[in-house]
């Protein structure tokens, strides 16, 4: 188990979780709060039913 593997893994995970936390803690600009958190995988269901969908209906009516 080469030491480099461990060092590189630690660096990668640190960078990712660093950016993840920084991103979570920066407040969303006003007017975007209603956008539901569509992270991860429910992208199909999410773009169909989420808040994103409502603003579409608003334009269409």
């Amino acid at each position, binding site marked *: 188990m080469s030491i*480099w593997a461990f060092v590189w893994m630690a660096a*990668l995970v640190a960078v990712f979780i660093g950016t993840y936390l*920084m*991103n979570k803690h920066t407040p969303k600009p006003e007017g975007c709060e209603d956008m539901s958190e569509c992270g991860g995988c429910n992208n199909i269901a999410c*773009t169909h039913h989420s808040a994103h969908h409502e603003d*579409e209906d608003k334009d269409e009516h």
Partner: protein
Amino acid sequence: MELVSLFIGLTFVNNVVLSKFYAVCPLLGVSKKPKNALNMGYAVTFVIFVASIVTWLLYNYVLVKLEITYLDLITFILVIASLVQFVEMFLKKTSPDIYKAMGVYLPLITTNCAVLGVALDNISAGYNLIEAAVAGLAVPIGFTIVIYVFATIRERLDIANVPESFKGTPIALITAGIMACAIAGIAGLV
């Protein structure tokens, strides 16, 4: 000249969505408004372009040198995820209006097959840095063109009288199939 044929090849001929199946999930999930599809396209183009360069550099100058190439998959997925988080944070901080347009799509990009697909292909095809950058630009542009055209078609699909059982995703898939036939038609171009 060879880079141009690589560009056209990746943008149209083996288009990432229609012939390599890389980003089918967003294709079906993209909204029906062409403007939103374009916004998603810009977000994806930026992320794939930067990701394909960064992953190429990391693979060749870190993983190969340290002989830990078996960490390639986890490096790529973590780099892409970090990039998406960084872009989202950067947009939130600097330009709220762009974030409002593209913000909802960014988390989806982490699980977008195209981003990881391009990074893996750059390595397995043995591209050098310039070719990887060209691929990183050509693939998302092809993706953007397809989802833009697809969004315009889906607008009309809603008002077309589609048989009851075909409404929604089934007709979208059939439409994508017909588009794939069209793209396959120009296969011999490059």
